[in-house]
């Protein structure tokens, strides 16, 4: 409690210019994290170079809470690859395996069917109404590596959003009152 009162007193003692400077420092820290994320996106060519596995549909290969590293690459999509895709109108990525590929001979068009390893049926039940195939633009990337269980933090923060705001609030206050800056 003392610490909070101290911090409050300290914040009040700053003038506008110092506040702006400290706020800028905070902004720069946040944006440098964002820029690192963007560079990862640029390098892997994928919209979301790191995803968290949200369901148990790929067990026993991937469990809920695992982190997956994605890379898009230029090679054509082939069966057996684990891909992450986004359906139109939804922004939750789904991690499943490709089980069927139909491709034109000149390589212009590709139809993909996926299925979760641990699911009973293929993903046609998940696709949008009337959609039977996935196309190239749905695919965000192929899984090229994974870290077990580390993504549980993200899942917790999504299930309990108060946790997310509390964390950001605390970090923000710590940076604003950092005397070593």
């Amino acid at each position: 409690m003392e610490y909070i009162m101290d911090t409050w007193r300290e914040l009040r003692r700053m003038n506008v210019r110092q506040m702006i400077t400290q706020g800028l420092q905070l902004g720069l820290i946040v944006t440098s994290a964002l820029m690192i994320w963007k560079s990862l996106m640029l390098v892997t060519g994928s919209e979301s170079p790191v995803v968290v596995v949200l369901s148990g549909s790929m067990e026993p290969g991937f469990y809920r809470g695992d982190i997956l590293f994605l890379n898009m690459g230029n090679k054509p999509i082939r069966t057996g690859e684990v891909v992450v895709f986004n359906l139109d109108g939804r922004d939750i990525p789904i991690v499943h395996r490709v089980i069927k590929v139909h491709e034109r001979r000149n390589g212009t068009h590709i139809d993909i069917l996926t299925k979760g390893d641990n699911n009973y049926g293929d993903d046609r039940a998940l696709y949008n109404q009337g959609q039977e195939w996935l196309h190239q633009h749905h695919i965000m990337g192929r899984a090229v590596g994974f870290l077990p269980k580390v993504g549980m933090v993200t899942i917790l923060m999504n299930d309990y959003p108060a946790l997310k705001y509390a964390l950001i609030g605390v970090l923000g206050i710590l940076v604003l009152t950092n005397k070593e800056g």
Partner: protein
Amino acid sequence: MGRKQASKPAKPEPVPEPAREPIRISNLYEAGVLKGTLDDVAREVVLDHGYEEDIVINNVKIVLGLVAIAAAAYSQFGPGKFPANWWMVFSCVILYIVLTFAMNIYSWKMEGDAFLVTKPFRGGQGVRLSSRMARFSCEYTLVLTDREDPNLEVLSTVRIPEYFHEDGYLADTAWRTEVEQLCAAFDAKRGEKAAKKQN
């Protein structure tokens, strides 16, 4: 000795010349906070002495910082869908890196390790106020350096426990006196140098 509004710490109540709120630190073992408190008060004293903070430096840093943050925000919230806008994101990232680099170089060149840089005043070219405190040491050194002539500097090394009470209060008057003595010493030294140059 006019006290400039910008250097006075922001106080919400408009009381006529309020008694300054005594500064109290709750954890006396936090070196960063101790140094910061002494720095803040020293900065006030130097500004009271008549110097004016050179805000151009701070302004440039703020502008560079804001543009960098804007570039970052544009790369995230800008139009187009990734990977179609690959080149746009790429240029935003490059712009961000260049701007933050420029900001750090500028800060390093203009400020060095000083936390206060002032405008030219009383014949001099302005001063740089910086401080040093070694890790795990209870000695604090305050340094006043001339902006133009880095050899013209005065420093004052004090033992931190002498300026803080046991219950955490800063010995305000004592520290202010110490800093004012430092300013006077600096003026004297500059006078000496000027006299020497003329001879």
